């Protein structure tokens, strides 16, 4: 009969609908950090270099060519960004796939088989504790059976005054040792116990702190990097170097803390302070630009003849 297709379509119409991301799903997706928000952009570093090259700006200088404070800053920035990349790549993948299941204030993705960890399955579980407070876990378990164990745990708290997407304070932790304890291979991070990242994107500048706790027997038991990135292109990076830094006229290597600060024009300065040992407190101040270090001051020698350039002074007087 001719009416049968119409009835079929009518029945279909009453039941058939679907989609990928709901509005609530967007809230969960919005709570996940992305690499571009957290990365450091030291002029000449990998991420900043890409941006500046694209804008016709400076070429990236290879930090391996030098051992100065600027080169150490760029290397630290790249290392920092690499850590961000590795940790957030998995999280960002979640943003490309709609939730597998929805249950009130919980969204779950997976479980999915993993390519790099054969025999394991992975899932992501997000909970909304209140409209602005989220927690999430990346969990694995053996396909042969066993409990789910967390490898990454994170939390996000929306800034009540902030408007717009991803304006949050958040923290996430990579539990590398715990993963190994459950038999999960952790290639390339065998020396890591935990990696903690805390961040705030609600204000200007964006602040990110990365703290790595290393397994016993390493040269240090932990390493910390703190990054500030302002919307005007300026920024600051603070990090420590353990027994790798050599300073002119001082026997080394030294354990130092380095604070580097720059502006959008790629003018910058680095303050390197010996943190331990007989030269503790010795400070090296470098001013640099896109051509390299053009002014230095060492606390253990006489002051330079030329006065410190004003743009360098301005940067030193702009605290983050």
């Amino acid at each position, binding site marked *: 009969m*001719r009416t049968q297709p119409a009835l079929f379509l009518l029945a279909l119409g009453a039941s058939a609908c679907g989609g990928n991301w709901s509005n609530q799903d967007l809230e969960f997706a*919005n709570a996940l950090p992305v690499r571009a928000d957290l990365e450091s952009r030291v002029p000449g570093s990998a991420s900043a270099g890409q941006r500046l090259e694209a804008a016709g700006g400076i070429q990236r200088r290879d930090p391996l060519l030098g051992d100065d404070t600027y080169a150490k800053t760029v290397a630290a920035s790249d290392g920092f960004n690499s850590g961000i990349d590795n940790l957030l790549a998995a999280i960002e993948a979640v943003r490309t796939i709609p939730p597998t299941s929805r249950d009130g204030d919980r969204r779950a993705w997976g479980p999915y088989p993993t390519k790099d960890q054969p025999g394991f399955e992975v899932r992501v579980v997000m909970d909304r504790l209140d409209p602005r407070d989220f927690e999430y876990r990346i969990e694995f378990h053996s396909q042969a059976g066993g409990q789910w164990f967390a490898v990454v745990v994170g939390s996000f708290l929306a800034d009540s005054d902030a408007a717009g997407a991803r304006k949050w304070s958040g923290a996430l932790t990579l539990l590398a040792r715990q993963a190994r304890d459950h038999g999960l291979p952790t290639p390339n991070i065998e020396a890591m116990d935990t990696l903690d990242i805390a961040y705030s994107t609600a204000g200007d500048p964006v602040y990110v702190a990365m703290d790595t706790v290393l397994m016993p027997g390493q040269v240090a038991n932990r390493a910390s990097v703190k990054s500030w990135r302002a919307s005007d292109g300026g920024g600051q990076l603070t990090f420590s170097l353990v027994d790798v830094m050599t300073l002119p006229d001082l026997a080394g290597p030294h354990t130092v803390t380095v604070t580097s600060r720059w502006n959008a024009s790629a003018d910058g300065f680095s303050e390197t302070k010996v943190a331990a040992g007989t030269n503790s407190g010795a400070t090296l101040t470098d001013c640099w630009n896109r051509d390299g270090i053009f002014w230095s001051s060492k606390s253990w020698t006489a002051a330079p003849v030329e006065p410190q350039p004003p743009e360098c002074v301005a940067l030193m007087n702009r605290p983050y």
Partner: protein
Amino acid sequence: MRIGWFSRSPFTRPFTRSGSPPFTPSGVEGPSTSFGLNGILRLVQAAAIALALFTAQSAGAEGPLRHFAVVAGNDRGGDGTRPLLYAKDDAKKLHDILLRLGGVAPEDASLLLDASADQLLTALGEMERKARDARLRGERTALFVYFSGHAKDGALRLGDSQLPFESLKSRLAQAPADVRIAVFDSCRSGLLTRSKGARKAPAFEIESDATRAAKGLVILTSSASDEDSQESDLLGGSYFSHHLASGLLGDADRSGDGRVSLSEAYAYAYDRTVADTAESAAGAQHPTFSYELAGNGDVVLTDVARRTEGLLFPADAPEGAYYLVDARGFVAAEVVKSAGAERRIALSPGRYRVKRRLPDRLRVGEVEVAGGQVAVLDEAALRDVAFSDDPVKGPGRSELYARHYSLAFAGSYQAVFDAPTTQGGYFPSSPLVGLEAVSHNFFGRGWSAGLDLLFGGATGTLNYGPVSTGYRFSELSLGASLLAEWPEGWLVPFVGARLGMNVMTRDFPGTLLPSQGFYTFSPGLVGGFKLRLSRHWGITGRARVHYLLYNIDETRNFGYLELASLLSYEL
């Protein structure tokens, strides 16, 4: 069955809506317009009718006659038949004439449209009861039964029900009325009279000079036992019923006494039906009658003189055939005027176009018939027009109800009943453009099927929880519609149901948020009007109301209103 056909100048149109192949009757039950055997038979039959009239008028009546009427029209004839176009219109037209001119009180008439056989018999039974009661009170009674519709295999077809000829004849023969007149406008209805042959028609009302009242049964049929009854688009009815109605309105009053007798009406309808259908591919259609009336007297079917309203053709009006076209574009009546003779036609109040055909042109004008007044035709008010500018021609109902297609370009605005709108909601209101194709009369007369494709979009801002960002909304809508249309006028209303498949996306700038996608089947209602600009072009105003179910992570019941205008081309 009855078939739709149109022929005969000035309305000759080369199409038919009939599901039957062109039919050429093999019988010789009536005359044709050419001389020969049929012509001779026609003369014999006309002579028999005239003799009957003479005999009836020589007798007298015994008293006043109370009239009862059962009038039925059914366009549908069930399996093996195609729906007729004008059977119900014919019934309504006859019913109106009987009430206005035939002396039938409204409470003594029953009009049945698309009724079943049981309903017809029930109505007949009710009138029989009234007639019986009237006779018990000493009144003389007349029962008029009219049916327009399908007949096949020896039975009237009323939708899916049937009423065998023999049982109906038996019922009418025993009906408790002094005079019973039955008129059947159906294919092969001549089976009803074949056993009796052509006889004189009795009178509907006994005249004052009659000495003995007539009693008995008269049956008129629209076609012979092996003929189809044909319909005409521009007449807006069957040939037979149209001419019977024209005659009853006054044009059949050959005696000039202001009253139309059964024999006058029959002779008039017979002549014109045969003449009109003689050139059709289906062949000439010959009405028949059966006369089984005892006593004497003339039965007057309509008293035109009693009505004070109508149209008067003065004696000095030119002779010829005049066609009176009603507001719907159908020929309400025809008048054949002789030179020097006055003619009067009892039209119901309304505005009519008057058309007279000359060898090389048309004379066309308008006349207003007011209630209670007789309008006089003023020849000077008519104007000459070429045949090609005939103002009353146009697509006939056959053409309108034939299966055909139309294409349209649509522009619409879709307003979603979404809340809270301050947060950007789920589906923003948006403009859409697209194409639409309709197969008219796809599911039968006036029932059409449509397909449409619309695309559009809008921009908006999503404020949801901590998320606040702009977005671009896009929608693709594919729909199928079932429409009921009334295509006969220049303004074509339509209503229907639509099932749409809506695919909607919402994209956010950059990589800020993933794109949202949603699809759903959306049932809804549609209605509107199409304004015909020409034979092919039209513009349409349309509204749709749809239900929209959203159920990704929660069930939300939305709706949307879509207002559209379309430019259409009808193939």
